[in-house]
């Protein structure tokens, strides 16, 4: 081909769509598809169009090669019982015709669905805002006010501002934290532990981050697994494998 795959085919859902379009333009019966002519025009479309990403181009090119194969086989005299070809499937177009018919009927189905979609889109219902009711929303669980106070106290405890003091160089590394987490998990085997329990109280932000990175590394290595039910929810860590 003179050009690289310069294909303007966004208008088509795929190679079958393009083929159907060509067949329609020629007003020929799918069952009597003139492969040579259609193949030629099909290649024309591939050659004369804009860039297309490789994945899509591959599908169009596969169809092009199928067309060429069919064309070639139609030029050959029908060999008696050619290897791999069952008697009665002599017409090399048969498989392609089957696919085209099936795709055409799918297209019609999709169009009919589109009509229903447009109709349904003109009717509006009154959905109740789901985030404001329901048992399992978590954030909205009814809480006694004492729980709220306890939660606040826990939060304050955890985030207590650090007192002025000499700050020693923080001596921890991801590798160290990995060992620490692994040790904790081994000690509490079979249990899941909260991520927060892996972090010493009073650890600075940097240490928390390093611990988190260590956990990610353990996940990557497949030594631990972790679950978080929702954004900003608690992280449960468990041991995996060995």
């Amino acid at each position, binding site marked *: 081909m003179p050009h690289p795959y310069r294909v303007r085919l966004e208008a088509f859902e795929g190679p079958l769509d393009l083929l159907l379009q060509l067949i329609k333009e020629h007003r020929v019966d799918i069952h009597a598809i003139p492969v040579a002519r259609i193949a030629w025009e099909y290649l024309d479309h591939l050659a004369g169009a804009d860039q297309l990403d490789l994945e899509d181009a591959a*599908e169009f090119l596969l169809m092009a090669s199928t067309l060429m194969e069919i064309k070639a086989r139609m030029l050959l005299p029908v060999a008696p019982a050619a290897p791999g070809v069952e008697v009665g499937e002599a017409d090399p177009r048969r498989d392609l015709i089957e696919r085209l018919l099936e795709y055409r009927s799918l297209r019609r189905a999709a169009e009919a669905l589109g009509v229903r979609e447009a109709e349904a889109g003109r*009717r509006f219902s009154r959905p109740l805002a789901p985030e404001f009711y329901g048992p399992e929303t978590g954030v909205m669980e009814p809480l006694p006010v004492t729980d709220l106070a306890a939660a606040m106290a826990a939060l304050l405890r955890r985030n207590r501002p650090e007192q002025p003091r000499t700050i020693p160089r923080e001596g921890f590394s991801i590798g160290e934290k990995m060992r620490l987490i692994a040790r904790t998990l081994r000690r509490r085997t079979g249990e899941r532990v909260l991520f927060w329990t892996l972090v010493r109280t009073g650890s600075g932000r940097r240490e928390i981050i390093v611990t988190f990175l260590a956990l990610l590394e353990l996940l990557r290595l497949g030594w631990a697994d972790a679950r978080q039910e929702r954004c900003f929810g608690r992280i449960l860590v468990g041991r995996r494998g060995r």
Partner: protein
Amino acid sequence: MAGEGAGRSPGLPAGLSLRSAVEALLLASSEPLRSGDAAAVLSVEESAVTGTLRSLAEEYRRDRRGFQVVEVAGGFRLVTLPELAAVVLAMRPEITPIRLSGAARETLAVLAYRREATRAEVERVRGVNCEKLLAALLEHGLIEERGRRDVPGRPIVYAPAARFLEHFGLASLDDLPPLSPSVNETSGVRED
């Protein structure tokens, strides 16, 4: 969904009919109201509920109300009249429903008319890769995974979800528009 709060039958307050109660349930349901669920809550036969729904629908039509009762996704739902869509959207343009792409509709059509299919089966009919599309449809809740097929590779089987029926305003998969030559399990080829 099945029986939100079913089991308890509060009984109807004096002066209010089954008709009012069914109407209340319709209004308070965010999902299509299943007649069986309503019947259980109200301690009546399901046929009484469906009869009431039908007569409510008739009443709304006769009185030219701005809403109607439609049967969708295995239940009943109160919706605005399609003729009033422009009015509704003029006030709330943000609820303009999305329209799916042709590719998405084709993929859904394969799953819906066959009831279920694997990715390879969808791709065979469509002739293009459908991996991303299936992932997006899953994410939008239009399709769901339904186990794995017992063939080499144990591919995931996909099927249309309730959300699909709602989006297309279908009462059930039997409510799909009829096909010309079929895309059924058989290859769909006519022997001419």
